[in-house]
């Protein structure tokens, strides 16, 4: 036997309609919910004031920065993502508003040069150290008593000097 639904078709339609309206309403509410200061700060912290030098947007006290923070708030409430907001600010004010330049074109040099120099330094140091060490006779085995008591020997030598 076919089980009958406890509600009629028209009732079902009404519920579906209500659900649709409610869903719309809640998504509209989600969109108009004002983002909190913390949500704004989380993004503003990663942006730099285009006017003041080296000041992150979340702490900059100028009026311009106040307006930019409000802009972040309104963009967040429009449902924009963090990346979209960064892109917008970069287009408007240039790469300097970002905490770091984008990894493209000339800017790659900024990221590549320090490790290259450091590696070159490390290679030079290692090579010269090898050169220095190979000139000398092999190090005596660590198993010898002299090596084991190296610390005490050092101390005693110093103590003798102090006497």
């Amino acid at each position, binding site marked *: 036997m076919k089980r009958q639904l406890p509600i009629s078709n028209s009732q079902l339609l009404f519920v579906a309609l209500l659900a649709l309206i409610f869903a719309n309403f809640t998504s509209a509410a989600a969109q108009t919910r004002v983002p909190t200061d913390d949500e704004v700060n989380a993004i503003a912290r990663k942006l730099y004031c285009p006017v003041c030098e080296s000041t992150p947007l979340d702490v900059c006290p100028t009026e311009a920065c106040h307006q930019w923070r409000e802009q972040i708030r309104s963009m967040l409430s429009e449902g924009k993502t963090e990346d979209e907001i960064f892109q917008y600010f970069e287009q408007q004010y240039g790469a300097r508003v970002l905490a770091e330049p984008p990894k493209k074109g000339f800017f790659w040099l900024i990221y590549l040069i320090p490790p290259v120099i450091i590696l070159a330094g490390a290679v030079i*140091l290692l090579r010269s150290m090898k050169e220095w060490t190979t000139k000398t006779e092999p190090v005596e085995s660590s198993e010898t008593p002299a090596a084991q008591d190296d610390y005490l020997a050092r101390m005693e030598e110093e103590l003798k000097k*102090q006497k």
Partner: protein
Amino acid sequence: MIPEFGYGVLAVSFFVALYSVGAAVYGAQKKSLAMIESARRAMLLLFPLITISAATLIYLLVNDHYEVSFVYEVTSRSMPTYLKVTAWWGGQAGSLVFWSWLLSAFASAVTIRKWERDIEFLPWVIVVASLTAAFFLGLTVFYENPFMRFWSMNGSVEPSMFPPAGATLFTPQDGRGLNPLLRHPGMVIHPPMLYLGFVSFVIPYAFAIAALITGRTDDRWIRLTRRWTLWAWLFLSFGLVLGGRWAYDVLGWGGYWGWDPVEIAAFMPWLTGTAFLHSVMIQEKRGLLKQWNMILIILTYALVIFGTFLTRSGVLSSVHAFAESAIGPLFFAFIGLTFISSIALLIWRWPLLRAETEMKSMLSREALFLLNNLLFMSVLVVCFWGVVSPLMSELFTNQKITLGPPFYERATAPLFAGLMLLMGIAPLSAWGHSTIQTLGRALWKSALVAAAVTAVAYFTYTSNLIALIGFFLIAFVVLVTAQEFWRGARARQSAQHENFFVALTRLMGRNRRRYGGYIIHISMMMMAIGILGIEIFQAETQNTLKQGESLTLENYTITYREIASWDNNGAGVNYTRAVIDVQENGVYLGKLTPRIDYYFDSQQNMTIPGQRSTMRDDLYVLLVDWQPASADGATFKVFVNPLVNWLWVGSFAFLAGVLFAAWPDKDPAEERSHTRQVAKQPSAAD
């Protein structure tokens, strides 16, 4: 009349400095002791001369002579007298005079000493010190003159030293006042500390150059300047810490270090200076690295001048600002010329600076010190590149860029971790030779206990991997260092039959440099705890509260009680102060009063946090001006900064360590003769 006098004395001191350079070079060339003595006296004369000029400037600052443009720029009637005095270094022109004054004092202190043993160094030390002084004095005499006055002519007002034809003196009613951010006690002491550090490094550099020119390339120059270097390092380090504390208290961003180019400018000579402090030990102990030590001190000097220039000139904001700044190209030329000539001298003397012995093992202490130098230099490369590349970008792509904390943190964190690891290993490695086995035997216990400490941290505090690596390294360094104290004292105890504490005290007293160094290592680890705490575990939130409303962050709840705003017309400032109650897990802890000070003369706000500080964490509350604060509502930004107090406590331990290492020992010869005398005379107790 008074400004003319001050300027006149400054101009005379510039020419005296030039004379001193000329006479010293001539005296050295002709081997004329009389000329060298004349150069020395000229240099000694610089200190009283610059003191008189500086005293004139201070007189003008304290007595509100606003017709002098420097006085107008940095003071106002509402400022207390002590701030008017310290405004001396609050602007560029005054701080250049301050720099010259410190240098003349240090150079005098150096040249007053007995020179019999090292007379060949004397003329060249004078040349370097006087040339540097002449450069700074020349800048103040010709470009950044602190004695210029305002002159009114045809309705326009121009600053000038001497009255243009037909002009009348113009005296503003009040000055613009010192930037309120600089009125904090930390900022009053911070610049002199940094400058003391900067200027003290000129002395070891002067001796290094003297050693290169004379060809006397043993380690005498290092021994003569060892204490100068330590004091320079102490002042520079303390200046950096004070700057951090100032930022924490005044800038209102809940942190102490923002990788700002100006901060980095002061940090760079510290990096090379620290590498130098370590690597000179290799030269003293093993006769190695003579060339490298020269490079390090030359770099430090160049970075000191570069740092002085950057901290005051603001040229980093853009290449255009640099080109437009009158003194920018001059600084650039001076740094370039001194650097190139120093390197040329070094190349000339390169063969004389060959190592006396050879390195025997890649794990010996000298090899590990070299690795330490590589790491310090790597941090320097990151910092230097970080400061310079925005200028490069503007120059080559016409695009301005920012390099913020993420760039530096990512690049330097592994380097600092490497330095910490070396701090743990190097003290137990031996000069000359060490092997994996000897090192392993010395280190395994400390490593095991450090691992246990890390496990406890994992189960009770955090699962953050970086924090756990940090805690492991901190525990490791502290344990290794403590073990060094323990083993040293025990060895002395058994050899000398002394009580443990007597043995420890005497051991430390007789090896000040080593044990001072160990205290510094431990203090660095305390500071590292603070840095890890705030960098990794900082929590923050912000909200606008009505009176009586609360906000919770971590264990703390703050409740906004009241707000008051009042003017202090005498000081030219308006205070807006909120009162909040603080509870931790429901227990009332007390009140905090974050406030905003608004300075009328400069129209600037200063955000003073309400802080509650413990060794576990800081509760740091800011009254932010996102919304106008009123009884209806005020916006608060709240930070919980775990462990940050360790940073400040560690810096005091650091100070103690450096003082311990740098404190003058009794002259051994004097001590011996004193002992002999005592031995001859019957004691008073007999």
